[in-house]
């Protein structure tokens, strides 16, 4: 069988334009631009860099291991359990996350499709993933930093704002796209079965790729401003996970609601705008009196943004209790969202 990876290696092109100055960080996302250079090697039928993607190496290896362990044909030829009972369900039902894992290839393809389609017929391609937070940062730096002289915890304001804008952009786009994801996939939902959770999940995961592109620019900006990351940077994955959980949690709630109530479509832009002001992006949370901060951190994005600043820039604000509160809030959102989603799921195909 031809090796899919070989074909892809030849197609590396144009990443510089996509990732800007982040040359040291080389995700091979060339095909996202929709412009594969050259013919590619013709021996590969598979158009997608399945296990070449730095962000998704795990499923492939996992499957290999699994296959070695279990020679039973059932595990790898059938996606669902051998005997299945279909019956009416009521009220709250189990999440059945195992099924989502079983459908991980589909999840992967949906993420890939989202990315591919999003930057199709665009001139700048994936550069948009970097430009959005970057341009917002410039506007903020001009109006809040220069003109309004908003304090920034002793960090240069552009860096201060961008550090918050990178996770925020991930959150806001993930939320917006996820809330429309089910309605947008109505043609799939009414025609084929798969765990519906994969749809919003894929959308938010696709946002993670954009995030990974915008993130190296942050390091560039730190280097430019002469800020070295502290040892606390090891905590960064925790804050990324927190942002992901928040985006997915809210996305699950809104996407499920959107199926039945199309009002959600009108609420979402408004919601993200309000949420942005409720999050310390243009201003530091140290502006708030100490006693209110814990309450403030019920907004999980507060924890995310403060966490990012603390881990990367070493700002003075000790986010400890805020992180705990934010983490709890995000977890509640996510778990509640997942169960709510599963509860609403049974009528999706009838209503959407």
């Amino acid at each position, binding site marked *: 069988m031809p090796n899919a990876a070989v074909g892809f290696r030849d197609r590396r092109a144009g990443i510089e334009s996509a990732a800007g100055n982040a040359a040291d960080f080389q995700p091979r996302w060339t095909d996202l631009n929709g412009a594969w250079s050259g013919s590619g090697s013709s021996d590969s039928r598979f158009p997608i860099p399945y296990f070449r993607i730095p962000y998704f190496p795990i499923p492939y290896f996992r499957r290999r291991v699994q296959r070695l362990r279990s020679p039973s044909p059932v595990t790898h*030829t059938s996606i669902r359990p051998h005997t299945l009972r279909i019956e009416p369900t009521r009220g709250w039902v189990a999440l059945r996350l195992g099924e989502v894992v079983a459908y991980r290839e589909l999840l992967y393809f949906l993420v890939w499709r989202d990315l591919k*389609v999003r930057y199709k017929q665009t001139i700048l391609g994936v550069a948009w993933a970097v430009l959005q937070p970057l341009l917002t940062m410039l506007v903020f730096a001009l109006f809040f930093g220069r003109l309004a002289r908003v304090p920034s915890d002793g960090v240069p304001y552009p860096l201060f704002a961008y550090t918050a804008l990178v996770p925020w952009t991930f959150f806001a786009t993930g939320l917006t796209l996820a809330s429309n994801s089910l309605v947008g996939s109505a043609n799939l939902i009414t*025609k084929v079965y798969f765990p519906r959770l994969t749809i919003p999940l894929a959308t938010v995961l696709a946002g993670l790729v954009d995030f990974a592109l915008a993130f190296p620019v942050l390091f560039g900006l730190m280097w430019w401003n002469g800020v070295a990351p502290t040892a606390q940077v090891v905590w960064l994955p925790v804050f990324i996970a927190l942002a992901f959980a928040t985006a997915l949690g809210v996305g699950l709630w809104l996407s499920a609601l959107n199926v039945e109530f199309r009002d959600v479509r009108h609420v979402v832009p408004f919601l993200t705008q309000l949420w942005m002001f409720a999050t310390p992006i243009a201003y530091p949370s140290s502006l708030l009196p100490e006693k209110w901060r814990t309450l403030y951190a019920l907004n999980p994005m507060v924890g995310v943004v403060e966490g990012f600043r603390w881990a990367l820039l070493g700002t003075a604000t000790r986010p400890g209790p805020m992180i705990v509160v934010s983490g709890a809030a995000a977890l509640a959102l996510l778990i509640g969202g997942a169960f709510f989603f599963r509860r609403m799921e049974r009528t999706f195909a009838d*209503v959407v």
Partner: protein
Amino acid sequence: MSSDVAFPGEASLAPTPHEAPRVIRVSHLGKQYQLGARARYRTLREALVDSAKGIARSIGRGRTRRSVERFWALDDVSFDVAQGDVVGIVGRNGSGKSTLLKILSRIVEPTRGTVDLEGRVGSLLEVGTGFHPDLTGRENVFLSGAILGMRRTEIEKKFDEIVEFAEVERFIDTQVKHYSSGMYMRLAFSVAAHLEPDVLVVDEVLAVGDAAFQKKCLGKMGTVARHGRTVLFVSHNMGAVVSLCSRALLLQSGRLVLESDPITVAARYQATLTAAPTSTTDLAGAEHYGSGKARFVSLRFVPERRDGSTREMMCPGSRLRVETRIVCSAPIDSANVGITVYDASGYRLVDANTAMQGRFVSMKPGDEARVDFALDDVRLKPGTYLVGLWMGRSNVEDIDGILYAATLEVEPDPHQLQHSEQFPGSYLCAFKHSVVISTPAGDVAPPGVRDEPGQRSAAGVSR
């Protein structure tokens, strides 16, 4: 199990090997829908108002009971499917076929009852599920395959086969939005056709592409069926059902009314179709041309058997009585009355008129006349035909004419279905013929082989 209970007499007809394990067990399945706008999207405001009303009602003891009309799209359906069965599901539009398939493929939840499924179920409810116009053919094969439940390695293995079957090799790296609709359909079907689940649920996807591709699709379905896979197959094409399926179910307004062999079910299904052939068409509102001295007022088709008894549907080779009624408003003298049969695209096929028989119609104002044509051995292929009426004197005047007065449905004969392959063309024909064979040994004519001149051959009839 349930099949035996429901139709004890017919169960023995079903060729199901009863030793084969049951892979689908449907028991008392029901799906209820709400009618009207309520069932569609609600806005938040409506939901709030409704719940407020609900609270008010619970306090005020059911003052304003909102009457939501509900209906059972599927009602108490039970049947079993054994491994390797190819089951046709037949019924008119709205009889619950699609609902049943949607429940079996887990897209919607039943309101009542249970289904037990063994093995992996693949459903093809639509051609091109998951196709994205902006992606290339190659990319769509992978995406659609994944959505239909195929593994990536599985798709890679079958990729060449899929592309070859679809006949789109040259365009595989072109975005599918630039495809012709035929190419798109072929590729989409091809992906679906290479799905290899234990149980395949198919909804009328065969109606894609040109005649040649349709034939290929049917062939593919046949191969799938012969390979011992379990298939549930919804179709309106009785020919396909009879030739592919080992058993068939007939649904009528959500209920399972017959479970038997495909021929019996196809015959019953056709009998439930519109009783249109024997109904009378009122021609008052039709578009008439001609002088209008007399008018056709109604037209009625009565299909008959060879022995002259009325039958409920028109089949190739039956007799057809066409009854017309004419009302006269000004004197007409020795007019010719005729009918013309056109195919569905308006192409003229056959004429019959009174002048051919040397008969003419004369009427005085106020007279009412009936002109009946008895057409013997009507060799029209199954399909829809248009019938036009005309009355006048050739090359002198048109008294009354209606280009397309009524449609005539010709159904396939259920007893010939198992052999019927749909040949293109417009009608079946029979020729009077005789045969002369010249060989060095001379003309050898064993008794009974050569037709007497003037006698219809029986050989050409079925095709």
